[in-house]
C-alpha cells in the first residue's frame, strides 16, 4: 500500500521510500528492535501484504483509516532520522484522499504486484526468516510494554477530513451525551484535517440549560475557553484543575462502584466536552494524565471523604509545584541572564515571561523591553499593560517591524505552549519568525518553559497538528468599511487563523526550565527522566 502511494506521489525520492518502510515498523506493531534493518523490512512487507489481502475484503474505508494510521506522529525512540518522517505524512495524507477514491480499482493490480514482491522476499529471506519468526512470536504478545512501544493512533482532532473518523467521534460523543460542534466556513485545503469552529455557534447551543450530563463548572470552563476569556497555557491548566476540584467536591460514588474507577469514567465526557470547546493544550493533557493517575492510585479501602480530600491536596500540590514554584525557579535562572542595559524582546503575552520581567525589575535590574505583537489576537497589548503598570520601559511594535527593531535588541525571551520531544518549540504563531530573524541577527533566543509542558509528541512542521481559530476574527472594520464581511460568498477565498507554530531547535539557544538551563535537544532526556520518576 505504501508502495503504491510511493509510486503515485511524484516527488518521492528513494530516501522517502525508505522512510515509509520505516513507518511500517509502527504498523507491524513494533516488532523486535533486535532484528537487522533488512530483515525487519522484509518481514514487515510480508505481514503487510498478508494484512492487506485480508483487509481488501473489508473495503476502502477501513483501508483509508489504516492508511491514516500510517503517517502517525511517530515515536521518538525508534527513529533517529525522525524529522524526516514528518514531511512524509503531509505528502501521504495529501495523496491519501485522491488515492482512496481510486483504491478499489487498483486493488487487483496491486494485489498481484504485492504477491509477486512477497514471493520474492520470501525466497530471499528464507534462512533469516526462521530466526525472525521465532523472535517475532516472542515479541508478538506484547508482553513487555516497557520495551515495546504501543501503536499510537492518530488523534481524531487531526483527522477531520476523514469521514470514518468523524463518524467514530460523533458516536463517541453521543454515547457521552456531549454535543458535537460543527465546523464552520471554508477551510484552507492544507489545514482541512483540523477543526475550525465559530464563536457564534457556542458549544452550549445543544445542551439543556440546567446542564445534567456535564458538571456546571466544566460547562463554564468550556465557555470561557471558547470565548477566549481564559487563554494561555498556564491559565488554562490552572482553570482546568480548579474545575476538576469542584467536580471532585460534588462527586459522590454510586453504589457498587469504586471511586478510583468511576471517577475516571466520569471525567471522560467532561474532557470530550472541553476538547469540543477548544482543543486541549499539551499542559492540560499532562495535567489530566496526572489526575487520572492519582485517581486510579487511590486504594479501595479509602473512604470517600478521605479520597476526595487527598485528591484535592494532590491538585493543589501539582499546581503549586509545577506552576507556581516552577515559575519562581525559572525567574531565578532567567534573572541571571538579564544584565543591566539589556534590551529584551518579547512576543505576545506569555504569563511566564511577564513574571520573569516583573521579578527582574523588582530586583533592580536595568533593562527595557520591546513588545512585539501580531494580529488578530493582539495579545501584546495585554503584556504591554502589565509591564508598563509595573514601571518597565516598553516599546511596542507589530511583527512586521521586527527586522527594523532587531538591531537594537540584545536578547529575545519567548514563552512556549509546549516543548516537543524532538526539541521543537510549539508556541503562538509568529514565534518561529521571531526566532528566525533573531538568529539572522545573531541575537540570543531564550525560551522559558515549565517542565509540565513537555510533551512526547514529535512534530517538525506546523501543518500536521495545529489549531484553527475562528476565521471571522480576521475581519476588521476600518473607516466604517468591512471588506471581508462576505468572505464566504467568494469561492476562491479562504481565511486562515492559525494559533500555533513550531520553532526548530537550531534557532533556540537556551531553554530555561525549572530543572535548570538546558539546550533544546535535551528535552527527550528530561522526558525520560520524568517518566522514570513517575
Amino acid at each position, binding site marked *: 500500500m505504501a508502495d503504491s502511494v510511493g509510486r503515485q506521489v511524484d516527488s518521492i525520492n528513494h530516501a522517502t521510500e525508505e522512510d515509509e518502510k520505516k513507518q511500517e515498523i509502527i504498523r507491524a506493531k513494533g516488532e523486535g528492535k533486535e532484528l537487522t534493518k533488512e530483515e525487519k523490512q522484509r518481514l514487515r512487507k510480508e505481514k503487510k501484504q498478508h494484512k492487506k489481502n485480508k483487509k481488501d475484503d473489508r473495503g476502502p474505508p477501513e483501508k483509508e483509516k489504516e492508511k491514516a494510521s500510517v503517517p502517525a506522529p511517530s515515536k521518538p525512540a525508534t527513529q533517529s532520522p525522525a524529522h524526516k518522517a514528518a514531511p512524509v505524512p503531509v505528502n501521504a495524507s495529501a495523496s491519501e484522499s485522491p488515492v482512496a477514491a481510486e483504491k478499489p480499482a487498483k486493488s487487483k493490480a496491486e494485489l498481484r504486484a504485492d504477491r509477486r514482491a512477497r514471493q520474492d522476499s520470501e525466497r530471499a529471506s528464507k534462512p533469516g526468516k526462521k530466526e525472525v519468526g521465532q523472535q517475532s512470536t516472542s515479541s508478538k504478545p506484547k508482553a513487555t510494554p516497557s520495551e515495546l512501544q504501543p501503536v499510537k493512533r492518530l488523534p481524531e482532532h487531526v483527522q477531520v477530513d476523514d469521514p470514518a473518523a468523524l463518524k467514530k467521534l460523533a458516536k463517541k460523543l453521543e454515547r457521552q451525551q456531549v454535543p458535537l460542534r460543527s465546523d464552520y466556513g471554508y477551510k484552507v485545503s492544507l489545514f482541512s484535517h483540523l477543526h475550525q469552529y465559530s464563536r457564534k455557534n457556542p458549544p452550549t447551543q445543544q445542551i*439543556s440549560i440546567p446542564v445534567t450530563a456535564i458538571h456546571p463548572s466544566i460547562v463554564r470552563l468550556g465557555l470561557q475557553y471558547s470565548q477566549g476569556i481564559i487563554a494561555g497555557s498556564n491559565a488554562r491548566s490552572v482553570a482546568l484543575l480548579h474545575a476538576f476540584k469542584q467536580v471532585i467536591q460534588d462527586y459522590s460514588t454510586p453504589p457498587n462502584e469504586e471511586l478510583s474507577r468511576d471517577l475516571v469514567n466520569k471525567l471522560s465526557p467532561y474532557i470530550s466536552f472541553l476538547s469540543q470547546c477548544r482543543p486541549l493544550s499539551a499542559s492540560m493533557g499532562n495535567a489530566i494524565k496526572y489526575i487520572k493517575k492519582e485517581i486510579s492510585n487511590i486504594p479501595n479501602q479509602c473512604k470517600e471523604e478521605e479520597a476526595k480530600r487527598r485528591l484535592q491536596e494532590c491538585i493543589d500540590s501539582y499546581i503549586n509545584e509545577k506552576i507556581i514554584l516552577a515559575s519562581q525557579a525559572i525567574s531565578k535562572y532567567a534573572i541571571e541572564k538579564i544584565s543591566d542595559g539589556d534590551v529584551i524582546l518579547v512576543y505576545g503575552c506569555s504569563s511566564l515571561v511577564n513574571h520573569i520581567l516583573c521579578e527582574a525589575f523588582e530586583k533592580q535590574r536595568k533593562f527595557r523591553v520591546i513588545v512585539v505583537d501580531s494580529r488578530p489576537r493582539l495579545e501584546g*497589548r495585554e503584556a504591554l499593560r502589565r509591564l*508598563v503598570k509595573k514601571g518597565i520601559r516598553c516599546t511596542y511594535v507589530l511583527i512586521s517591524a521586527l527586522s527594523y527593531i532587531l538591531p537594537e535588541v540584545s536578547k529575545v525571551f519567548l514563552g512556549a505552549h509546549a516543548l516537543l520531544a524532538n526539541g521543537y518549540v510549539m508556541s503562538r504563531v509568529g514565534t518561529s519568525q521571531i526566532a528566525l530573524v533573531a538568529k539572522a541577527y545573531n541575537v540570543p533566543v531564550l525560551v522559558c518553559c515549565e517542565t509540565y509542558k513537555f510533551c512526547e509528541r514529535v512534530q517538525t512542521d506546523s501543518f500536521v497538528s495545529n489549531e484553527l481559530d475562528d476565521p471571522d476574527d480576521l475581519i476588521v472594520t476600518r473607516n466604517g468599511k468591512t471588506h471581508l464581511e462576505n468572505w464566504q460568498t467568494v469561492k476562491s477565498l479562504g481565511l486562515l487563523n492559525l494559533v500555533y507554530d513550531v520553532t526548530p531547535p537550531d534557532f533556540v539557544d537556551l531553554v530555561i526550565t525549572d530543572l535548570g538551563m538546558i539546550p533544546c535537544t535535551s528535552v527527550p532526556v528530561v522526558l525520560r527522566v520524568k517518566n522514570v520518576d513517575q
Partner: protein
Amino acid sequence: MELQAVLMAAGGGSRMMDLTYNTPKPLLPVGNRPLIWYPLNLLEKVGFEEVIVITTKEVQKALSTDQRLKTDVKMRLDVVCIQEEADMGTADALRHIQQKIKTDILVVSCDLITDVALHEVVDLFRAHSATLSMLMSKVHEFTETVPGQKGKKKAGEQRDFVGVDVTGKRLLFMANEADLDEGLVLRKSIMRKHPRMLIKTGLLDAHLYCLKRSVVDFLVHNKSVTSIRGELVPYLVRKQFSKTLNSQNATEDSERNQKQQDAHHNLELLSTSKDEALLQLARERSCWNDHRGDMSEAYHGGKLRCYVHIMEEGMCYRVNTLAAYIEANRVVPKLFEDPPIHPAAVVSERSLVGSDSIIGQLCHISDRTSIKRSNVGTSTIIKEKVKITNSIIMNGVTIEEGCNIQGSVICNNAVIGRGADIKYCLVGSGQRVEPEAERTNEVIVGSDQLMEI
C-alpha cells in the same frame, strides 16, 4: 444542579384591567392557549425539568385542571400560592420561597412570549460569572387598532434608558424616564472605566433574569426591596461601580457596623467562594481583558457584573397591555403547527373560515358565517350569518345570528345579541350586548367595573 427556574405568575395585569378583572392574567388565552403556557413551553424546550411557579390559588387550580396545561407541560411544577391581597412584589415573592432556592435562579415572568435562544442569556451568566444576566429586545410598533383607544397613543412616555458598553453585552446603566427628574445623570466612575457607552431607548425588558444565589440571600437581608425590575436590577447595575465593592476584606467588619442602619449587606461578602485563590491565579495568568486603553485588569477588578443580551431579531412580547395582547394573538398562532381548526370543533361546511384564523375545540360554527384573521376560543357558539374579522373571541362566547364583529376583543362568556354590529370594541367578561346594537370603539364592561378608579 445549575439553575432553578422560577415563574412569576401572580401579577394582576394592572395595565389591562378590562381583560383581567375576571380572568387572572396567566390564564388569558393567547392563540387559544393560556398565557402561562408560553413561558412554560420555553423552559421545557430548553431542558428544564422542574419549575417553581409562584401564583394565586385560582391559577393553581387551573394548572391542575386545564387540559392544555396538564398534558402539554411535562415538567414538574412546584406551585407556591400567595395571597392576592398581599400585594407582593416580585422580590418579595423570591424572599418568600428562599428556602427552596439552592442554586442560581432564572426568573421568568408569566407574560413573556418569546422564541429567544435562552443559551445566549445563560452563557453570559456562566462565562463571565455574572451576578445578573437579563434579556432585552427591540420594541415592535403595534400596528393593530386597539379597541377603546381614543386618539393616538402617547409615545415616549416611560422610556427605559439602557447603557451598554462597546461590546453591547455589559450593562452599565439603567434608568426609567419616570425616575429621572431633570436629566440623565452619569457617574464619573462609570465614565472613567467605560469611556464609550451606548445608550439605547427603544428596548423592551423581557423580565427574564438570571440571578446568582447570593442575590437571593441579599434580598432576605434587605426587606426593603420589593420589585426585581423596579428596584433590584437598577440597584445591582449601580452597585457594579460603587466604591465600596473594591474595598478589602479587612474592612468588612467596620463597614458592616457603619451600614447597620441601612441593613444593606455587602453583596461582595455573599458572593465570595472558596477556591477563589485558584480562580484569581487563572485570571492573572490569562492574557485576556474585557476592555483596553487603561491600566486595569479584566473587569476593572470588580466582582459584581451585570450583563444583558439584546435580541435583534426574533419574537419577544410581553403581554401586559391590551395592544400587546392583540399583537401577540396575531403573531403567535403562526409559530406553532397546530391545526388551525381544532379537530373537536364543529364547523359547518357552508361557513368560511380563513386560513389565518384559529378555532378552538368544542366550538360550534354554523352556516354562512365568515371568520377572517381571528382567534376563536373554546366552547364558543357562533350562529348563522355572522361576520367576524380581525377579532379575538375568548372562551364560552355566544354570538347570535347576523352579527358583524370587526377588530374587537370579546372576553369569556360574553353574549352578543343578534344583529349587533361591533367595531373595535372590547366586550368584557360575561357581558351581554343587546341585539341590533351598534358600538364602535367602546369598552363595554360591567357597571361595577366602571366604578373602579
